[in-house]
């Protein structure tokens, strides 16, 4: 086993999880133009749905996965219909919506904590396998599944956005909601379906992460922080950027352990965020930020 390669493999795996959460978060941010912090809550709801299905009802994890995605998707769509849509009709600014979504995240997180307790739950079944040896590093089947889903989901979402009619509508609303409206795009239903799609991706990421490392009520908050950093580092509206951003912070988090004690992982991720915000707030591949309107 080569320790350096192990850091790289762990980093890619962590980065893949961040990228999957960030993809849903980034899609919503791109289309609607606000930070949907409750995405972390939607993510945790998906994980706990999978926990109930596998643990209480005895389903296999592969059967529970699509159901968890459905639960997340419904939760995300409901949040849009009940909270965001009325706020957008009243022309609430992105900052006002951000504060409301922060409130939603706190509510969901504490409801989960009330219902399931604060201890770490597990949905893994059977014995822990020691994994395959790959380029001198151990990689578990769950990590392989995570990385394969990342590649497949990014490919599928990228094609969907660029080659399907609905994907084009999503990009149109993201670029200019008013112009999209002029061309007859019903932006409210586009936003709703974006929430449903993005939240389903959060559910997928949540089941994979829960399978790998277990679930706690604060898992959504942690995943969300990674997603926020990945989206800002990657750049608004760029699928490839989000994937690179997720992988970059996953790698940074695990390569830091090589030189520094592991408790500085979080600080290093946020240092990357601050550096990007100061020097290149539009991220790797994003377009320049909107300026203050005159």
């Amino acid at each position, binding site marked *: 086993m080569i320790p350096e390669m192990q850091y790289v493999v762990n980093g890619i795996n962590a980065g893949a999880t961040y990228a999957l959460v960030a993809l849903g978060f980034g899609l919503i941010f791109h289309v609607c133009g606000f930070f949907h912090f409750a995405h972390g809550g939607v993510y945790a709801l998906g994980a706990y749905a999978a926990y109930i299905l596998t643990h209480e009802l005895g389903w296999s994890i592969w059967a529970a996965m699509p159901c968890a995605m459905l639960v997340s998707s419904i939760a995300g769509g409901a949040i849009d219909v009940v909270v965001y849509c009325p706020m957008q009709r009243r022309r609430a600014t992105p900052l006002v919506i951000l504060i409301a979504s922060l*409130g939603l995240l706190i509510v969901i997180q504490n409801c989960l904590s009330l219902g399931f307790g604060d201890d770490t739950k597990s949905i893994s079944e059977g014995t822990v396998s020691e994994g395959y040896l790959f380029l001198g590093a151990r990689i578990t089947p769950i990590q392989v599944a995570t990385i394969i889903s990342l590649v497949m989901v990014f490919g599928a979402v990228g094609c969907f956005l660029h080659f399907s009619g609905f994907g084009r509508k999503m990009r149109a609303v993201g670029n200019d909601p008013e112009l999209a409206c002029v061309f007859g795009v019903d932006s409210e239903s586009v936003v709703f379906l974006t929430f449903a799609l993005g939240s389903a991706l959060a559910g997928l990421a949540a089941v994979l992460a829960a399978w790998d490392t277990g679930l706690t009520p604060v898992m959504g908050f942690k995943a969300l922080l990674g997603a926020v950093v990945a989206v800002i580092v990657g750049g608004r509206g760029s699928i490839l950027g989000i994937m690179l951003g997720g992988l970059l912070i996953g790698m940074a988090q695990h390569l830091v352990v090589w030189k520094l004690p592991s408790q500085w992982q979080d600080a290093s991720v946020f240092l990357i965020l601050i550096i990007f915000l100061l020097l290149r707030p539009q991220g790797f591949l994003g377009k320049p930020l909107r300026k203050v309107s005159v």
Partner: protein
Amino acid sequence: MDYFLHILVLAMVYTILAMSLDLLAGRTGLLSIAHAAFYGLGAYTSALVAVHFGVPFVVSVFAGIVVAALISFIVSLPSLRLHDDYFVIATFGFQMILFSIFNNWMDLTRGPLGIPGIPQPVIFGWKVDTHLEFLELAAMFTCFAYFVVWRITSSPFGRVLHAIREDEVFAKALGKNTLYFKATAFAVGAVLAAMAGSLYAHYITYIDPTSFTVMESILVISMVIIGGAGSLWGPLVGAVVLVTLPEALRFVGLPSSVAANLRQIFYGSLLVIMMMFRPRGLVGSYGFSK
């Protein structure tokens, strides 16, 4: 009776925090999620100098002020390029980094073990050790914070802050160095939060990082928003409401873990409801939009 006085002291600590945050969020339009970090900087700095060097209360508070002011310049730097929601994200990053320092720099802060044995304040021979005396001290701090915020907001300086909140480009066009105004307002807000932190550390005599998490920042934001941003009384109303109402849960006889969750659900839902229906809060004048 002591319990009642204790709640009042806490309400005053939070009033100072909420008033100082309102100076940034409600007056200047710089919503910061790093406020608990400055609160913590004040608490940790004065706890450390008081425990290690045995300096008097006045000096330890002053040390907290200096450190918070210096760090605040670094945190206000991103406001050079970022506005509104992006600025929120940047302060979020600073909050997480500073919390990580409180929690992980074992040699300095003892991490999750916290710092015990912080001496109770002695101010020029006045030994503050009962709840009632602490209430008097906290009231002095609150009046001082109120005076500072009132003085700033009713001065020409405050009018420039107001202009920056409404339209920064326009303020620049009138020849105002907006970066200077934003950085100064941020420093004043941070210094007042640090004073609240010093007061808290010397009152409880023990601090650990759990008092300075991002949830604490969000709690202070909730106070400003629920009370009302951009007003002198709003933060006070918000702090008193959010400190005292959850105490009622204590008397219903719920276990403390359930009560803690219910309290957070209460803040969270109030935030959502306020932002949906009344972004300017109970008595405020600013709804976080132009």
